[in-house]
């Protein structure tokens, strides 16, 4: 792997950048792998990366039906934080944030991690109570988190309307300073390059259309490029989890819904934190290129259409202007949607399935980008050892039978 560095950039510039090698290859699929990962999103690529890096398992293929990073990884608002209420979640997301902190270096690919701080606003007494509960728990779990007064928030976000009489008065908020954003594409591409360099086959335009299951055990997959066998298969397809489960012969407690986001035209820097307001469904940050990146609420019907309904956007922008009246004359440049995999308790499912050697990792819903490296880390471990990683164990599928749900609904209406 040619190292990426300023020096190398300069060297290559003297050849007109005509000598850069491929960041990842485009091999033909082999007939047989130790592990097949279905889904070339951030989570799938991270799984492959850690299988190779941590477990030395390199006879691995990542099968992606389209282009890597083209699912939710490529269409999310890129908010990173680890301030989750329940211990199980906090541990998992904190592992992920820690991995993010070293990821550019680990991958030798600048993922443009920007830890500018994430603020969650509280507009009612009820939300203040939630903030207090959450921040207290998070701090006691050893994760940085603070409660802010309206004055402190105003200082950090001067354009925020904290004046009296606002329809959404700001009573306070929570801040995680280590939270922030990262460049979504770079995360996928950097992971792909790192995995590829360790021998993982990244195979794009290869859709999995079925599983070869014999006596309750998976032996390979059917794809649009033909059958491929594997000793173990890990499925990480986010919104399509239900479809793949159906192919494997079982049902999941998951429904797929469109979640929308939009960007404004690019502007000079004016907004230096990540701000979220759960009740009114406003999530925004300014990207390094200058656009405001904004997330909206979720459409409540099932859909695989990667687009949502206008009322969701109208509602979000109304609330946004109530909070930031000066933004009224900005313009929406592009809006889009992703298909999120929603679990009843808003927590992911990681681990074994009714089929032996078939593992699923899904249900990250509206908030899994922040989990990308952590999810890959524990999933790789789970696949390699055949037993759930300790941090993944609480997120097993049978919690829906036992009732041991990890209900993060209380923590945030939509968990970006």
């Amino acid at each position, binding site marked *: 792997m040619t190292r990426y560095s300023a020096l190398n950039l300069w060297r290559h510039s003297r050849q007109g950048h005509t000598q850069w090698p491929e960041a990842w290859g485009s091999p033909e699929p082999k007939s047989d792998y130790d592990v097949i990962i279905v889904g070339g999103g951030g989570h799938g690529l991270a799984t492959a990366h850690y299988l190779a890096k941590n477990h030395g398992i390199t006879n691995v293929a990542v099968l992606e039906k389209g282009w890597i990073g083209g699912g939710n990884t490529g269409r999310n608002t890129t908010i990173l934080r680890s301030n989750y209420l329940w211990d199980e979640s906090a541990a998992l997301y904190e592992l992920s944030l820690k991995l993010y902190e070293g990821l550019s270096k680990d991958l030798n690919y600048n993922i443009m991690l920007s830890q500018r701080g994430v603020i969650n606003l509280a507009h009612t007494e009820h939300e203040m109570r939630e903030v207090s509960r959450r921040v207290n728990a998070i701090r006691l779990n050893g994760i940085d988190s603070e409660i802010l007064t309206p004055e402190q928030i105003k200082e950090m976000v001067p354009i925020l309307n904290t004046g009296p009489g606002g329809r959404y008065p700001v009573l306070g908020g929570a801040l995680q300073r280590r939270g922030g954003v990262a460049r979504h594409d770079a995360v996928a591409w950097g992971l792909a390059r790192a995995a590829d360099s360790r021998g993982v086959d990244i195979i794009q335009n290869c859709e999995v259309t079925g599983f070869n299951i014999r006596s309750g055990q998976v032996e390979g997959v059917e794809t649009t490029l033909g059958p491929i066998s594997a000793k173990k298969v890990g499925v990480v397809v986010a919104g399509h989890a239900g479809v793949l489960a*159906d192919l494997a012969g079982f*049902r*999941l*407690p998951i429904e797929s819904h469109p979640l929308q986001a939009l960007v404004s035209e690019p502007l000079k820097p004016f907004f230096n934190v990540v701000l979220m307001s759960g009740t009114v469904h406003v999530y925004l940050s300014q990207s390094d290129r200058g656009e405001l990146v904004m997330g909206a609420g979720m459409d409540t019907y*099932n859909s695989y259409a990667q687009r949502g309904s206008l009322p969701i956007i109208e509602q979000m922008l109304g609330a946004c202007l109530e909070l930031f009246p000066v933004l009224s004359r900005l313009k929406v440049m592009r809006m889009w949607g992703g298909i999120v995999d929603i679990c*009843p308790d808003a927590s992911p499912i990681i681990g074994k399935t009714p089929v032996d050697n078939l593992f699923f990792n899904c249900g990250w819903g509206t908030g899994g980008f922040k989990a990308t490296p952590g999810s890959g880390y524990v999933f790789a471990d789970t696949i390699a050892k055949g037993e759930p990683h300790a941090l993944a164990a609480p997120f097993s599928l049978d919690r829906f039978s036992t009732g041991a749900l990890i209900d993060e609904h209380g923590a945030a209406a939509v968990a970006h």
Partner: protein
Amino acid sequence: MLLIPCPWCGARAEKEFKPGGEAGIVRPLDPDALDDAAWADYLFNRANPKGWHRERWIHALGCRRWFNVERHTATHEIRATWPMGETSPDDVERGK
């Protein structure tokens, strides 16, 4: 924004409705007869297909009736709607 034909009121904008998920999930008559897994299946597991989906909607801002819709989850095309408790036009045709 979808245009949903309420079987009672006619075609109305999506904003007037709320979806209620997969149609035809019947509450077990004797929940105690189910083991935890079977109960979880009723409670949480859903077909969630990419394609035609039979689902429930309520005309919340209109007649407040629940009804059934057959909608394609990838194109959002709506093929049929019919009142609760009735058979879908499709099934009628097929003599189900």
